[in-house]
């Protein structure tokens, strides 16, 4: 077949990229080779727009065992044990087919973890959808929510990994571009970690797991383009997952790894057979020969092009020690899985694919994996935003702060996400010390006395108003969440969700956000060990808010966790960090501005990273000293919403607020660096704050069944905990028009 400009365009390659392919090969590529290049050089696989900027991220630290470049990052947790973790997006497939799109997103990230030898012990997910009310797309958005949540539940529950936390936010900009970012973490001994580096000329290449079908062809390219009306017809591009098969694959891989016969192993994710073979070959500087006739196939008549680009799920590629194939076959057959030798490791560094006696592709592995174009896309403009910088001339005074509070706690962003997380098995494997609904999830590692805390955070509104500061705030909040439960943040993964990088004002958002993450992760000593970039999150020219999502991992001693709910009456409330003022300009990024005023303006909250870090250090010392009964960080919705969230156990609080600000700013401003604790020993708590140079004082006391907030001598808020709970818990089922319970 002759390669025409139309064919090149159809493969989402530019003319310049095509010329680079010709020069790397020294000839015109075949149609199959063009297909292979198109997926490996897609934005999704090659990071061509972001690579030069990702280099700015800190990637080393004393806990880091493996940084970016492998299937997942790895950190040491002591005693010879390590955890592997990473975040991945499945945004585009989840819009086209919510259930399978989300389900296979979970499947993909789980394989990234266990391909390294680590058994997955936790999943968290960060979700963004269009609004569930007051929007022309509300009905469709609700269907996407329902589909995505049941897809995640289906896959994670059946696989047997607990889904222990996450976040879920609603904005109009996500209506055509929902975000489904899934984080997974696994554990193993350091000496049992496997890498995806092919070695040993003559070693066999073994295919294991599900058979190859035509599903998901060009999924990676789909995920690298904007949505148009045509995209909806790309449903066949979405893969179908089988979590049962994945569970078998997990158990078989872990057992096979113990034989010592595996040299390298990589899952077949985006671009399936192609990416796994050329990446393993490229890392080991060797060639790979594959005979496609030997690949287990689910359908007949598949071409080399289709097999190489298929994204059929639940498959792995293994390089084994020559002569020990049978040991591996025995393990996979025990679990009822296909395992066949389909090729071998060769000299010379080329990926050579034969099919029906024809050499279909002969490409240097490096050309595919490492020589993808890198673009320094124009970004020297102001990041895209249309929201005004100045506050409105008058911000209307609240008529009823009580009503405002109830409106906030029952808003889609701030309300309880129980409807979502009760569909997830968050306890399987009996390691979950703190599950969904708290500041950070905690799972214990049974084999050690250590536990792992995890938090996913991102704030699109903040990043839209200022990508650099918004990204720093996401890092700060994630680290604060970990510190609130007493964990030391040690490493991070990030998922960068942005629009079209070919638009300079969008590229500027991306660059600013990466630099913000770099700055904050350096400051908080949480190096990035891997992650994912999802660009082209645009539908019909409408982009999302720039949405970097940070997944930060912390470690702590295994013991009963500190919860966020008040536990007993008569405890003193200490606001660690102090009241921290909010001005009119920064109030525009708050949930109050969104929910009560239906506006967005100004700037995100001001962050002092030195102070923030001192707050974390003080909190961890307080937690380690067992001085508090509860701890909860202040974030979206500010002080009043945080207090409400602490009242879930029918114990309330009486609080006195006196600041020079307007009551709305004082109660609902979202200044960072604040954590609310309840304690019977306030003096000791305050003395720790003093030693760390952190403000803080007793602002109230816990009482029975009411939340009362006195502002400048008048009772601004007085509500029963049962009314609060009903507003908080009932909101999401009501928005989704489903039953509250059962």
């Amino acid at each position, binding site marked *: 077949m002759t390669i025409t400009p139309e064919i090149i365009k159809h493969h989402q390659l530019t003319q310049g990229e095509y010329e680079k392919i010709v020069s790397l090969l020294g000839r015109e590529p075949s149609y199959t080779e063009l297909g292979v290049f198109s997926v490996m050089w897609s934005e999704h696989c090659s990071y061509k727009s972001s690579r030069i900027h990702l280099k700015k991220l800190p990637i080393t630290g004393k806990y880091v065992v493996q940084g970016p470049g492998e299937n997942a990052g790895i950190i040491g947790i002591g005693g010879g044990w390590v955890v592997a973790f990473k975040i991945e997006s499945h945004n585009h497939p989840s819009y086209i087919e919510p259930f399978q799109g989300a389900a296979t997103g979970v499947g993909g990230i789980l394989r990234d973890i266990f391909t390294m030898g680590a058994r997955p012990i936790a999943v968290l997910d960060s979700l963004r959808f269009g609004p569930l009310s007051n929007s022309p797309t509300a009905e469709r958005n609700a269907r996407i929510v329902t589909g995505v949540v049941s897809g995640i539940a289906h896959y994670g529950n059946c696989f047997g990994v607990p889904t222990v936390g996450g976040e879920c936010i609603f904005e109009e900009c996500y209506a055509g571009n929902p975000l489904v970012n899934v984080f997974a973490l696994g554990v193993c001994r350091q000496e049992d970690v496997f890498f995806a580096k092919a070695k040993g000329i003559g070693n066999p290449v073994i295919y294991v797991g599900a058979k190859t079908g035509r599903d998901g062809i060009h999924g990676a390219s789909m995920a690298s383009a904007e949505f148009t009306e045509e995209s909806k017809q790309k449903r066949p591009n979405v893969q179908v997952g089988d979590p049962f098969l994945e569970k078998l694959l997990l158990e078989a891989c872990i057992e096979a790894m113990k034989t010592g016969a595996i040299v390298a192993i990589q899952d077949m994710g985006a671009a399936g057979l192609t990416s796994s073979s050329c990446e393993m070959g490229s890392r080991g500087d060797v060639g790979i020969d594959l005979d496609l006739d030997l690949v287990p196939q689910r359908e007949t008549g598949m071409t080399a092009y289709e097999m190489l680009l298929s994204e059929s799920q639940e498959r792995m590629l293994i390089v084994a020690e020559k002569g020990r194939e049978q040991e591996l076959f025995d393990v996979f057959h025990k679990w009822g899985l296909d395992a066949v030798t389909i090729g071998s490791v060769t000299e010379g560094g080329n990926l050579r694919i034969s099919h029906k006696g024809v050499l279909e592709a002969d490409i240097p592995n490096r050309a595919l994996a490492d020589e993808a174009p890198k673009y320094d896309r124009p970004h020297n403009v102001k990041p895209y935003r249309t929201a005004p910088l100045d506050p409105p001339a008058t911000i209307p005074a609240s008529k009823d702060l009580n009503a405002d509070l109830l409106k906030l706690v029952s808003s889609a962003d701030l309300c309880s996400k129980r409807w979502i997380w009760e569909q997830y098995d968050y306890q399987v494997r*009996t390691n979950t010390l703190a599950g969904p609904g708290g500041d950070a999830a905690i799972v214990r590692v049974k084999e050690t006395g250590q536990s792992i805390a995890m938090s996913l955070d991102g704030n699109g509104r903040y990043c839209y108003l200022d990508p650099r500061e918004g990204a720093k705030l996401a890092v700060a909040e994630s680290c604060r969440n970990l510190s609130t439960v007493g964990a030391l943040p040690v490493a991070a993964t990030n998922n960068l969700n942005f629009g079209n990088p070919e638009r300079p004002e969008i590229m500027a958002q991306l660059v600013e956000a990466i630099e913000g993450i770099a700055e904050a992760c350096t400051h908080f000593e949480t190096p990035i060990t891997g992650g994912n970039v999802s660009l082209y999150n645009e539908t019909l020219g409408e982009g999302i808010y720039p949405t970097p999502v940070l997944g930060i991992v912390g470690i702590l001693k295994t013991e009963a966790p500190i919860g966020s709910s008040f536990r007993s009456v008569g405890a003193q409330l200490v606001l660690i960090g102090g009241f921290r003022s909010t001005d009119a300009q920064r109030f525009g990024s708050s949930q109050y501005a969104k929910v009560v005023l239906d506006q967005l303006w100004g700037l995100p909250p001001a962050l002092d990273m030195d102070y923030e870090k001192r707050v974390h250090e003080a909190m961890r010392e307080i937690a380690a000293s067992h001085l508090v009964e509860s701890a909860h960080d202040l974030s979206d919705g500010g002080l009043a919403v945080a207090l409400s969230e602490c009242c879930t156990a029918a114990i309330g609080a009486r609080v006195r607020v006196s600041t020079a600000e307007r009551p709305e700013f004082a109660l609902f401003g979202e200044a960072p660096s604040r954590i609310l604790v309840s304690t019977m020993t306030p003096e000791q708590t305050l003395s720790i704050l003093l030693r760390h140079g952190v403000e803080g004082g007793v602002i109230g006391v816990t009482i029975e069944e009411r939340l009362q907030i006195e502002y400048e001598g008048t009772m601004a808020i007085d509500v029963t905990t049962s009314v609060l709970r009903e507003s908080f818990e009932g909101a999401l089922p009501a928005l989704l028009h489903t039953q509250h319970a059962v």
Partner: protein
Amino acid sequence: MKVGVVVFPGSNCDHDAWYAINQNLNRPGHTASAEFIWHDAHSVGQVDAVILPGGFSYGDYLRCGAIARFSPVMQAVKKFAADGGLVLGICNGFQILVEAGLLPGALIRNAGLKFVCRSVGLQTVTTNSPFTSALQPDQVLALPVAHGEGQFVADDRTLDQLEAEDRVAFRYIDHCNGSMRDIAGILSSGRNVLGMMPHPERACDPLMGSTAGLGIFESMLAYTQQGVLVK
């Protein structure tokens, strides 16, 4: 007490049951150990009790438990039960026991049509069994449920019979799946087989927030060691 925990392809609470027996139940004065039994075993071996754990055996294709009942190990479990051995089916294990005909009724999709994971209150209906003798009559246990197909259904005659023969072990106080007569767990006519949807093995470790599930395993321990019900 030596407990065999059956591992089907797709079992995923097998390790949790194993851990609860070996780590949480096995303490001074309580000698208990657990080992795994692979699904194609033709015998359960020398064990005092068998646990069919939660999970998605064989992917739970067709119906939950519908394929597992044909596995070689289930023939062995049936024989073990017929000889009076203790068999505890938890969640997917309960579904398998029902499919295998060791317990009556059926478990269908939750009334809410969604998977539900939460802690629910259970009423102990009978203490006259090897699984519940260490509990108090009407004792309330808070145990987690985690299932999509846990709605217990049966015809009226079966339900009447279960009640008349004191074979309802637990009832839900908090509704979570729409089960008939709030039934959460039932006994076989010989009282040596218990199937229940809630997960006692998840509530054996104080770090997990509750030890309400231990009483069930302690009852089994007393029965297997002394051959008597705790009283």
